[in-house]
């Protein structure tokens, strides 16, 4: 039952790369966004907070549809890319990577915002008064004191990207080695009545997801997913 063929390994490789790149990109992007969100309660911040949280409530097909429109050959971004001699992004790995980054954004931004809020301004002010510039403060005070938030953000982002389906199907289709991720492969197997193969992959994902959530909850109960 658990014998994995080349198609499975290829899907695992695409999925793993997608999850890893999404997580790395999001940690870089989400940190400044979360920091800014944690600094106050202005209207601009509420607007950004709402936009970041949109993927939580929208059907993935909605996000996938708009991305297809924008990134595809006739879309603003896709067309521009074509004009300068590059390929549009629909049905490509880069395309689903962009989709994943947007789709998993709340799972990175929210735990980090929470962590920065809990940190409060005191340690940062202390470090400033002791002569530490911003980058120095970030690495010597902010990061060490919010490490738990970063672990939660990274783990949730990784796990959530693993669970993507709708967005990828809309934007990426099912191209082996390019956009065919595990969730899509399971769908394909099930469609083809190939239940054994679908089962082994599903069980793998199920166990992985459980272990991930277990780790996250035990690392930091305060930054629980329940708050998302």
């Amino acid at each position, binding site marked *: 039952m658990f014998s994995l063929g080349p198609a499975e390994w290829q899907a695992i490789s695409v999925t793993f790369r997608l999850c890893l790149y999404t997580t790395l990109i999001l940690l870089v992007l989400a940190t400044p966004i979360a920091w800014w969100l944690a600094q106050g309660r202005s209207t601009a911040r509420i607007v950004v907070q709402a936009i970041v949280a949109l993927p939580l409530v929208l059907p993935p097909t909605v996000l996938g549809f708009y991305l297809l429109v924008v990134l595809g050959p006739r879309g603003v971004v896709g067309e521009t890319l074509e004009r300068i001699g590059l390929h549009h992004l629909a049905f490509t790995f880069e395309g689903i990577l962009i989709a994943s980054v947007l789709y998993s954004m709340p799972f990175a931004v929210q735990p980090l915002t929470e962590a920065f809020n809990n940190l409060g301004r005191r340690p940062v002010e202390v*470090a400033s008064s*002791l002569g530490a510039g911003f980058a120095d403060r970030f690495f010597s005070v902010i990061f060490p*004191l919010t490490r738990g938030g970063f672990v939660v953000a990274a783990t949730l982002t990784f796990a959530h990207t693993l669970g993507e389906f709708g967005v990828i199907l809309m934007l990426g289709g099912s191209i082996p080695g390019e956009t065919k991720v595990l969730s899509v492969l399971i769908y394909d197997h099930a469609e083809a009545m190939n239940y054994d193969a679908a089962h082994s992959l599903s069980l793998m994902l199920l166990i992985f997801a459980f272990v991930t959530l277990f780790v996250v909850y035990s690392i930091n109960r305060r930054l629980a997913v329940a708050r998302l």
Partner: protein
Amino acid sequence: MMSPSGISHSGMLHIRARLRRADDFELNVDSALPLDGVTALFGRSGCGKTTLLRVIAGLERAQDATVRFAGTSWQQGRRQFVPLHKRRIGLVFQEHSLLPHLSANDNLLYGYRRTPEALRRLHPAEVTAMLGIDDLLERRIDQLSGGQRQRLSLGRALLISPQLLLLDEPLAALDTQTKREIMPFLSRMAAQSGVPIIMVSHAPEEVERLADRVAFMHAGQIERVESLHAALARPDSPLFDDAGAASVLEGRLGEVEADGMRRFGSAGAALWVSGDTAGDAVQPRNTRLRILARDVSLSLDAPHRISIQNHLPVTIERIDPPRHHRTVVACRTADQQLLLAEVTPRAVSQLGLAPGQHVYALIKSVALLI
């Protein structure tokens, strides 16, 4: 006025700031504070002391504020702004300001390591000795008491060799016993470090023990800046609002004697202080004694056979009009220090007290807080 050398108003901190917050609070300050010794920002909670301190530190962005430190501009409205980490200000908060992920030693040296060698004037050995924290450095933060943490915070702030030290109610979170324990360190630090200090406080006791001058704040404004002596000499001083009138005597505190008492003062005006009120510093040193006026009585004759140990010959300088059926009598000691006594109007008339009269001031020794 600019002097030919280009340095103007050196030795002063100029602040002009207006700040309106959503909760209707408005800070409106246009003042100059001398940069030597200890200046207390005194006022009730919510009068804007801490906000003013944060404007000076650059932590509160008042858009059109002007802050100039001894001729160096720290902020000119929106045009120019020096961030806190370039101002070299030592900052000590009420509590919880140690970095929890660092050891005591790493906390102490956090700023020292970031201070260019050429600017280092204070070094770990002298600072740890000054604050009595040598023995704490190997410990974890959570093994330190409140007072030890505060001393460590003070040391950490001093080790950036700051141009200015801002203390935001540094004793407010400590219990009375710890306050008394830390006071001598604070006053020694103020005297020995040579760093000007601005200290926020709402406790008259702290101000009277530590400050050289007081900036009285009310409703977001600095109402007046005056020396501590001037502030203690006027009967309507806001310092007297809570515990009543008090005076501060300066003098030398002697060693602890066999019976636990310590001699305080000069040859002409000696008092006896019980040793256990003196904190943990046993060495003789110059210090201040705060004496509440209601703990001082007056006698026309030299007292004999009385349990009160402390009696000083004084000269009445002024008798204030009675308030709430109490009269404050201002006296001069033999060494010309001001001592206030609170008596009833009836006592004034019965004893026939009048300015210029020589009387004896009787002070309960238990009232002497070091």
